[in-house]
């Protein structure tokens, strides 16, 4: 797990950096980690959908909608901060008892997840806010 700290650290730094740029650049959209214009998403949000589908979909269902296997992240994303989200993704979470068998594996060492935590978060926030729907989101410029 020691390996994770620097990785996680740089990811967190990235978040900060992005927010600063946005805050300096624009008005309300500064609050949002994604950009959606006419139903089309920016590169970052699109990549979030793609990485979500690669590493999260098998348990959390297509498009964050939840499955018989793991909860809907469209709902969870409404009730957590990005720090909490990052923490769970990096370190995993286990909830195994008589009534449930939920095991979220740690993704701290998975390059394709840790490198894109911001993107995945942006995608889930866009889903949670209802600004994009199910399926592959169209890209700005597509």
């Amino acid at each position: 797990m020691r390996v994770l700290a620097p990785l996680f650290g740089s990811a967190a730094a990235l978040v900060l950096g992005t927010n600063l740029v946005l805050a300096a650049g624009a008005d309300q959209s500064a609050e949002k980690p994604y950009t959606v214009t006419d139903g089309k998403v920016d590169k970052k949000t699109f990549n979030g959908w793609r990485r979500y589908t690669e590493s999260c979909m098998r348990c959390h269902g297509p498009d964050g909608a939840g499955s018989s296997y793991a909860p809907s992240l469209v709902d969870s994303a409404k009730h957590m901060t990005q720090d909490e989200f990052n923490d769970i993704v990096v370190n995993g979470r286990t909830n195994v008892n008589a009534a449930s068998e939920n095991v979220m594996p740690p993704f701290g060492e998975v390059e394709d997840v840790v490198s894109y935590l911001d993107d995945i978060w942006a995608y889930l926030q866009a889903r949670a806010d209802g600004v994009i729907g199910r399926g592959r989101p169209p890209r700005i410029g597509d």
Partner: protein
Amino acid sequence: MKSPRFWLALSAFALVAGGASANDELIKLSKDPNQWAMPTGNYANWRYSELNQINKDNAKNLRPLWTFSTGVLRGHEGGPLVIGNVMYIATPFPNNVFALDLNKNGQILWKYEPKQDPTVIPVMCCDTVNRGVAYGDGKIIIEQADTTVVALDAKTGQVAWSVKNGDPKKGETMTNAPMVVKDKVIVGMSGGEFGVPGHVTAYNLKDGSKAWRAYSVGPDDQILFDANTTELGKPVGKDSSLKTWQGDEWKVGGGDTWGWYSYDPQLNLIYYGSGNPSTWNPAQRPGDNKWSMTIFARNPDTGIAKWVFQMTPHDEWDYDGVNEMILADINVKGQPTKALVHFDRNGFAYTLNRETGALLVAEKYDPKVNWATHVDMQTGRPEVVKQYSTQAQGEDHNTKGICPAALGSKDQQPAAFSPKTGLLYVPTNHVCMDYEPFKVSYTAGQPYVGATLSMFPPQGDNNLGNFIAWDPSAGKIVWSDPEPFSVWSGALATAGDVVFYGTLEGYLKAVDMQSGKELYRFKTPSGIIGNVNTYTHGGKQYIAVLSGVGGWAGIGMAAGLTKDTDGLGAVGAYKALANYTQLGGVLTVFGLPE
């Protein structure tokens, strides 16, 4: 624990029972329609019963007679075994096994509850399913999720032996049902979505010692090929697998072996298929990626491959080749043939000569299949349509409208064969997809997929599944019953001219073998992805099936298949499966009223 006397008795028994006797016992048991001694019905994977008390005239009077909750929620694939007066069922993770006393209305004789590390749960690609136990030589054998193979005393449930077949930390898991052949038990491997190199392994039934292991991909001494191993009648030559991969990519190349196995005692060959090459991004693994997506015929004593046939070279769609191989002696184009019939995920139904591996028939079993125009009968290669080639369209390009979807025109849910009609009864998916490959990095024990997909019904249709009757000689659909959802349950054909299957909404259905006309339906407590069986007890015929929605169907569909962005969601038939059923493992046993 066990007394020395017990061990002595056991080893003495093993000595007597060694050699081919487990085989003979199983052949005898599988010929007795009063029992259901193998997950697949018989070695030929027929899923057919000679019983005819329940027939097309009285099937309408069927009713559920008793039920049993397994206490486990996840997807219940596979089905019960019945040997003598005892029924054996296995659950998804944690892989509990129950022996139920049929003399006492299903009272529990014993149960086995393994303690497995729960970190195996998230490395199971498509739910924590288990496709059931095998019986042989007084033992019940299960492949646990954590890759432990366990043999239990069929009378007491005590562990006779247990052996570790893999490492879940690398993404290796086990989901399929073992097959007992001669003095060995043959087991598989799952984990194609985690870059796990697939193999089949034979353990000695007596003590769990390893007899041989044959990989799907790699050097000849690991895939157990020799100078006589052929494809379409020609020797494959040296390094036939390695030559079709770039660099070391084969080491995380997949080709997992999680489907059903069959066996021909006369030819002394076992048959099975291998799964997808890893990753799903074809651009990252140039070459034919042999021997993923391949039918293998191997000698069960040595593991040596006699012949192979690769259905989908250089897979670009996740069309695993693991579906069951049904062995039948039938007329193919007028010639009596020792045939092998296989409904591949890629949408083609193949009929081969199972002795030589010669390709005889390859036809689409869903007219909507569009990724290839046909299979070249000389080379066996599919003629791929460029528009639907995710390799040709490239990384980061969304290739649209490919039929079938990654879950195939049919997944592992096994078909049934009736020797009475010579037809096969096939549960199918009727689903298409958009597929966008992208670059991924390999991390041991982590998903290694590299493609996104969206799934939807074929254009102009509103059903996601069909239950069909198939003529393996002509390569044609005889009748087809549309189903609102994929049919994800194993079929059962009977001499009573009735075919049984389950649906994702939870219906157990009986249909007329001749016409497909529905004779009976009953809504069980949860969606059915298990396989139907039949047996007698006290001279009366019963039908048994496990409910418990899940599996890939549960993961992909419980959240709803459709994209609410493109308007498809407006059509009623595509409503989320979650509106029809919920999780929960329950066995339901049906019979006729007294």
